[in-house]
């Protein structure tokens, strides 16, 4: 399920996590969980950008 998330969805989740960690009172345990999830999302998204390569396809009339 994690794999199928798009870049946009992951980025949105990351924003949600930052928002939560910054603006709500969390237990240390919940905060740690979110912190770890956020960091892994950041690594994941950075990796997507690092590895991305534009594929170009020309579609002419058949």
């Amino acid at each position: 399920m994690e794999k199928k998330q798009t870049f946009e969805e992951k980025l949105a989740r990351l924003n949600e996590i930052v928002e939560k960690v910054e603006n709500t009172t969390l237990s240390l345990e919940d905060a740690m969980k979110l912190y770890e999830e956020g960091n892994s999302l950041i690594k994941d998204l950075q990796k997507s950008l690092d590895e991305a390569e534009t594929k170009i396809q020309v579609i002419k009339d058949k």
Partner: protein
Amino acid sequence: MEQNKYFSVTALNTLIKSKIDGDEELHNVYVKGEISNWKSYNSGFFFDLVDEKKSVIPCILWSDNYLYLPFEPKNGDEVIALGSVSVYVGRGRYNFTVKTLEKFGQGAALLALEALKKKLQAEGLFDISHKKPIPEFPKSIGLIVGDKSAAEADLIKNISRRWPLCDILVFPSLVQGKDAPKELLKALRRAETTEIDILIIARGGGSNEDLSAFNDEALTRELYACTIPCISAVGHEIDTTLIDYVSDLRVSTPTGAAEAATPDQQEIRAILLGAEDSLNTAMKNLLSKKRDQLNALSVRPFFKNPSSNYAKAKEEVQQLSKRLEMSLDHLLEMSSNQVRSLSSRLEALNPRNVISRGYSMTTDERGNIVTSIKQIAEGDTLKSVLKDGTITSKVTSKE
């Protein structure tokens, strides 16, 4: 002749200038003619407009106004010029100061285009409410561009630089000439069969005639019906085609289209670093807050001297157990007293005690205690138990 009977040349020219320049009829008039003697200077352009009767009017077009011309005028062009007549006092010449020029013959085409635009507008083709939002993170972008055109190269370069996560599908088409509208329509229909998130239609600048394919009614209607969000970048800023009106977003250059269609990976990377920072800071703050809470707790009496809380309870337990012990002792003492008094009472009943005081107990031979003379007869054997032994005796008589 007296001095007040003649003009100086300057005075005459100035009078003429005030007559002509001040005449409203000679302000903002349209003149049709053919351009000849085109000359350019730093300040502007000088040329003549000539008509079929070879009548000539000298014209001036200042550089500022030249910038806004819809085309590049050259000798031989039939034009309509808008301007005002003005006199140059120093040379005693009048000229036509041109504000703008339009190619003659385009008027009809422009009128037709204007009518088409009004019709489509009335039908709602250009309504803002029909505009689709441009997705922020496209996975695939389609390009309708001239084959190997500068627009294509520019778009591919900028899209892949900004957002390499998205694929590009190129639908090459003619972008000018009489077959261009048909070709563009075919390219659009091809694009509609693919899974693209955004469609970009782009072409570099050109004359009105060059861009006319993008004013095609069928193409405009097809694009209106198209479900893919579309960005148009046709011609320069000042050229607006019907495609521009019907597209979901209009930009003036292919680079602008790439920017409108994609996020910039540098910005996203900065956002990711920012998020990392925010998480670290928030975590640090939370940890130090928890540490403070812990410190605050540790100075409270409970943690300073945990046994103090128990001292009272301990005392209670001790007291209770003492009471318990006491009552047990009491109970035991009471019981032993009872036993003692019972045993002394029992002792008092012991017949041996009576015997020890000088009495004796008599039994028959079978050990039955003799309490009445009726129990015995003469000659029976009796046993008497005394304090220190037993006497056996024979009954010789009874009374």
